[in-house]
């Protein structure tokens, strides 16, 4: 995917560029708000990564300007240690995701993938079922089945599975699950999510040869086969 990075810190910027390059992504790097805004308006890109504090136009103003101009490219805001409330403010101004520096590259990559795909699948939001391999989830009846066998599932497990199935083949981090499935942004002291995942795994994978829900070491979880770059 093509990523536009607007970041004034040389070390962080270079690091992200290198990492994205290693991960096989194409990255354009701009170092201030004004040229970043101009480039974002004139170039097609899949995801924007914007530092909050920028020389010239600051990150949040930049996003607001883009949104006002009708440009809906997903934006991930990077910020130095978030003051309380910063995150909410950023999301309210039109950012799609928010990540506090310094961050693990896995986390950034996972979030970029998700943003990218969400934008790609926006047109098909009218779908009524989700399918990953032989696992099916009916969004209307809230029924889950695998290879035709119905699976009894509890409400929170349903939300968890729905989120995973909306991002098939993508790495989903624990922080992302807490934010989107539970709706809270916080750091659990223990991997409390793991227990939920293993319960879900019991239900969807136990009686089947092929495990769909896998743990990605050090990063998070993935449902289904690892996917190649989504079609542009």
């Amino acid at each position, binding site marked *: 995917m093509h990523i536009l990075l607007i970041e004034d810190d040389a070390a962080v910027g270079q690091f992200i560029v290198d990492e994205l390059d290693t991960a096989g992504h194409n990255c354009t790097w701009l170092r201030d708000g004004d040229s970043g805004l101009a480039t974002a308006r004139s170039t097609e890109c899949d995801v924007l990564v914007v530092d909050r504090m920028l020389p010239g136009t600051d990150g949040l103003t930049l996003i607001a300007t883009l949104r006002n101009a009708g440009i809906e490219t997903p934006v991930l805001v990077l910020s130095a240690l978030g*003051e*309380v*409330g910063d995150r909410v403010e950023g999301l309210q101004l039109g950012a799609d995701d928010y990540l506090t520096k*310094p961050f*693990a590259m*896995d986390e950034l990559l996972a979030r970029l993938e998700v943003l990218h795909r969400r934008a790609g699948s926006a047109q098909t939001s009218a779908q009524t079922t989700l399918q990953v391999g032989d696992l099916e989830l009916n969004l209307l009846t809230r029924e889950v089945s695998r290879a035709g066998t119905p699976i009894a599932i509890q409400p929170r497990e349903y939300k968890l599975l729905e989120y995973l199935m909306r991002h098939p083949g993508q790495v989903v981090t624990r922080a992302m699950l807490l934010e989107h499935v539970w709706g809270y942004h916080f*750091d659990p002291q223990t991997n*409390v999510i793991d227990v939920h995942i293993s319960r879900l795994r019991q239900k969807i994978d136990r009686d089947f040869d092929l495990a769909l829900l896998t743990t990605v070491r*050090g990063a998070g979880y993935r449902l289904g086969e690892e996917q190649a770059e989504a079609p542009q």
Partner: protein
Amino acid sequence: MKALEVLSSLTFRYIAKYVTVLSATVFVLLAGLYAYISYSFFSDLSDTILEELETLQVVFSGQGIDGVGQYVEDQLAAPSSGRFYYLVTDAEGEVVAGNLGALPRYEQFTGGWLGFQLALLEWGETVDVDFLARPAALGDGFDAVVARNYADITEQATLVFRTLFRAMLATVVLGMIGGFVSAASTLDRVERLNQELSGIIRGGPGKRIDVARQKGYVRQLAEIMNKLLGQTETLMQGVKTVSDNIAHDLRTPLTRMRNQLVQLRGRVPDAEADALEGIIAECDDVLATFNALLRISSLESGGQFSGGGAVELQPLLEDVVELYEPLASERGIDLTFCAEALPSISGDRDLLFQLFSNLVDNALKYTPADGRADINLAVGEPGFLQVSLSDSGPGIPAEERANVLRRFYRLEQSRGAQPGHGLGLSLVQAIVHYHRGHLALLDNEPGLTVQVSLPLA
């Protein structure tokens, strides 16, 4: 304030010593004064006797023995007299004139003075009265003795002495009372200072002694203490800043290191893969510690919550319970939640979720299997909602309860036995204070009860 406290105070002891020395001095002075007064009275007494003898001698040399007899009779008859007693004898020792029948048994003093006692009739009864007397030869074998009693003189001296003694007694008593009062007032000031200082110890390093409430030298002391508190605060701030800076500055290189380690995945031999994951996990652990530390600092230094976000605690706590329920049942702990229908509070929902998830996390971590952890949401003191979490774990000894809220502090028994950084409760406290609430750790007998009071919106 107890009287005993006043009596044992330094000020009172100082004043008591001062009064004692003063009394001793006054006593010596009094003794000297008494001696002087007595001496001068007696010298007056002896002078008058000598004068009287001289008069007798003059009368004798002028008018002879008859003149002396007449003079003595006149003197004794005069109404103002009675001061002198006379005895005039001839060469044979026969009494010629005077009112002393014979010389009583006397004591011989130096300088030709005699002393004796004479029983006198006074107010209807006889009283032994001291006399001073002096004999002198008149000539032609006639001798005269003039005596004078000095009871009035000793009486006067005694009167003076008594007056002085009473003055001294008054000095001592008044001095002691003054000492007591001034010691009490000093103690009172010190007590107020004590109270202020205890308040500062409870209230945190930002507080200062109210100098305007103090007076005199206590005010100076208060000013110095305030300066000292200021320096302490600066030092504490410095230590915090340094540790925050370390955490902040180390986060970036540590993250970079972690990311480089992640890139090694798949490139190291399978045998080393586990070791690599172990190192990555360690990095995550250190990063989590740094993040928690910086989070606490940012909460503590960022003032208090001022936004208007309304949070309903009941659904939030239900979410916490729902999140932790699988973990609890996996560990064999009964996690329950009980709530009244209550109004919402003003707060940051992510932080509040963090707060209660930390508490539940702790309860699940320390409560043994088959135990229980109960969350209860109710109305607390006026204007507050109260969330209490009671577990059946080992609890925290009363003397350790303040300590466990300190950063990096961990109980001896949980060190090594349980994973953790010793920051969980510090973060809880920081979030509670950020919301203008307060936190109490209580004994659940057995187990721990954590009480979080949050102000209503």
